[in-house]
């Protein structure tokens, strides 16, 4: 084709009804054909990239777990069942998962817990590390967020905000049924107690959302973890002990 074709083609008025009559069968065939080719292409892309994507995700999660629990070198995944914890089978995909992290000598150094809640734009998904000895949160990492770049995404990048989760008190009350102090929100620069999360200027909604989702998760999870702390401690040495089912 040459330049003359271009001019001819563009000169044709593009009003509806002008194009030559084409049978409906041909139109349907064309659409169906494109649909089938697209479908096949997508299936192949999906299947081709799925193993790599899953691997990337697992690696990212593993990195995140070792990030939020200082001193961790190996992990076991537990899932709760009727208030008890049991070692998760690799084939299972339960909604609730706790990652017990162990140090070099096989001792329990902490537990990583996933939590999510509604942020400003979409669900915010985080991972936090729990130290059962000090009964506090010792690490925090955002796994997924669609918060406003430059504002809400400061929950990941703002060092002062991340510092909230270096020693956030989530100890249980005397009777062990709930938190001694709920995790509450503090205005920027107004944090006094170790169970307060100090917000970010300009990202109040997102930082409040993080405080809320941590509190909701901690209220449920801390009780389960503390009740089953022996199971978690033994996990690395006698895994069959917990794997009853």
């Amino acid at each position: 084709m040459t330049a003359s074709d271009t001019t001819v083609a563009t000169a044709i008025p593009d009003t509806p009804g002008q194009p030559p009559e084409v049978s409906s069968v041909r139109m349907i065939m064309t659409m169906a054909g494109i649909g089938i080719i697209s479908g096949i292409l997508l299936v192949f892309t999906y299947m081709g990239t799925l193993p790599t994507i899953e691997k990337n995700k697992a690696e990212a999660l593993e990195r995140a777990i070792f990030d939020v629990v200082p001193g961790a070198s190996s992990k076991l995944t537990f899932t709760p069942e009727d208030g008890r914890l049991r070692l998760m089978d690799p084939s299972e995909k339960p909604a609730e998962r706790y990652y017990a992290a162990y140090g070099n000598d096989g001792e329990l150094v902490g537990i990583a817990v996933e939590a999510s809640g509604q942020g400003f734009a979409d669900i915010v998904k985080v991972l936090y590390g729990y130290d059962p000895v000090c009964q506090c949160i010792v690490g925090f990492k955002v796994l997924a967020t669609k918060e406003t770049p430059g504002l809400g995404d400061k929950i990941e990048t703002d060092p002062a905000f991340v510092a909230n989760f270096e020693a956030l008190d989530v100890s249980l009350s005397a009777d062990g049924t709930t938190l001694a102090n709920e995790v509450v929100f503090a205005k920027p620069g107004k944090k006094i107690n170790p169970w307060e999360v100090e917000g970010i200027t300009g990202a109040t909604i997102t930082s409040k959302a993080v405080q809320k989702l941590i509190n909701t998760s901690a209220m449920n999870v801390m009780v389960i973890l503390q009740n089953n702390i022996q199971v978690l401690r033994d996990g690395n040495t006698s895994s069959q002990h917990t794997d009853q089912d």
Partner: protein
Amino acid sequence: MATPAASIQTKTSSESAENFIKGLWRENPVFVALLGMCPVLAVTNSAINALAIGAASTFVMVLSSTIVSLAQKLIPKQVRIASYILIIATFVTVTEYVLQALSYEVHKALGAFIALIVVNCMILGRAEAFASRNNLRQAVMDALGMGVGFTVACLSLGTVREILGNGTLFGFQVLGSEFEPWIVMILPPGAFFVLGMWLLLFNWIKHRKEAAE
């Protein structure tokens, strides 16, 4: 087509160059045609986001223009728009999967924006107005030129918005710590302000050039 081969050769190469260059300035999809405003306004709150959406859009546009140009004789006029949308959506999804497999971190940063490429009317516009009426080579040159023009336009918005709204450029601090960021620049209104300013500047230059001639 009775034109001698040599003449076609020179004609097509100068034509290719022309089709590439027109997207950069004279027919810039953002500053002149005002196409693809959705990603231009929504995603340009930092320079790196602007660059990434520009690159991803260019990639999708080149691929879909290729297919549209090759299949122009096969697609009946009546169902062309629906066909183009299917082709574009397929390539966007492919891009998303491939990006996710290539780098988890990049996909995490851009995940929300990739799907937006489907609704970029610039890509549909080029498929309809150019790729469906020209040969493969011209269609690819046109898509590349438009893609680069789009990326440059996104970057023009992204850099200004990031510098004024966050004091940084590509994540590096460029304005001193005493600088109080104009948060509005990162928020949606900032996109309209900056786009308006760029359009004002471009039209002023254009008018001055025309007046001088």
